């Protein structure tokens, strides 16, 4: 059985391998610098996609986890990954306290069962283990951006605010570090990454045109000669440590 979610990503695994939004970024450089000189025993990269996030950590064992088999195959072929595991982030197939690092980059907005996800991350981490989370964040653009994201990608569930994400950690994690990154998206690349029909792609651009002016300003929407060229969203980088 192939779900809508799996099907979406199975068909576009190569697009994510070369996606400029995923393959590089200030967030990757920051995390790499933060953990410079730190060596982990077991790391788990959740919703690994094309596996880019696994490269910034030094770990003896790297496990890549995803709902899409093709994504996993793409990641394993490209990077030095010890094992790929297909599964659901709300039902992790690992023993309690297995990892000293769990990472997850630009994916949590797809998760249906967010409370289970956080419970499971906490369960599989060792005490004092790190959970490094990067995802799109929203504030005044909340409803507008979540709506556009859903039009573009119907596996989008919700991008959260910083406050909501910190609340998920629920006293079981300590927030060791937080950074806000601004990421400019070229509409042609971003909007076509999931291979939409031309009609859908034009609809996505229309959604940007219809935004209120203050939201356009918040999102840095660039419109040249009546054509939407880019927008800029916010990525939150959270470095949590399991404290109990």
């Amino acid at each position, binding site marked *: *059985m192939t779900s809508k979610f799996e099907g979406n990503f199975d068909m576009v695994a190569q697009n994510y391998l070369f996606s400029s939004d995923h393959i590089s970024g200030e967030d990757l450089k920051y995390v790499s610098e933060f953990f410079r000189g730190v060596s982990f025993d*077991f790391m788990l990269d959740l919703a690994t996609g094309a596996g880019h996030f696994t490269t910034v950590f030094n770990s003896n*064992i790297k*496990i890549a986890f995803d709902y899409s*088999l093709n994504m*996993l*195959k793409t990641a*394993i072929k490209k990077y030095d990954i*010890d*094992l*790929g*595991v*297909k*599964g*659901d982030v709300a*039902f*992790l*197939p*690992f*023993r*309690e306290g*297995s*990892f000293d690092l769990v990472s997850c980059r630009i994916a949590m907005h797809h998760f249906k069962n967010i409370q289970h996800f956080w419970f499971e991350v906490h369960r599989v981490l060792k005490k004092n283990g790190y959970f490094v989370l990067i995802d799109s964040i929203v504030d005044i653009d909340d409803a507008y951006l979540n709506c556009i994201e859903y039009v573009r990608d119907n596996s989008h569930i919700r991008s959260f605010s910083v406050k909501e994400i910190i609340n998920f950690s629920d006293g079981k994690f300590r927030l060791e570090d937080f950074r806000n990154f601004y990421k400019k998206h070229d509409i042609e690349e971003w909007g076509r990454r999931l291979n939409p029909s031309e009609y859908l792609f034009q609809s996505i651009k229309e959604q940007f045109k219809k935004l209120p002016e203050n939201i356009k300003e918040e999102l840095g929407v660039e419109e040249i000669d009546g054509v939407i060229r880019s927008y800029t969203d916010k990525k939150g980088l959270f470095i949590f440590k399991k404290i109990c």
Partner: protein
Amino acid sequence: MAIKKELLNILACPKCKGDIRLSKDENFLVCDNCKLLYEIREDIPIMLIDEAKKVESTEEF
């Protein structure tokens, strides 16, 4: 890329979180408790409860 023993040791059944083992033919990960077989496809364990094969007994696997 065969699954290393140290990796098998940290894998668990996603349903009961209990022990799993490699099947005799090495094509499945077996949860004796839930009587579920998780297929290994191209060296990638498919650890989805909905996609696991339910069996009456896991003895033969």
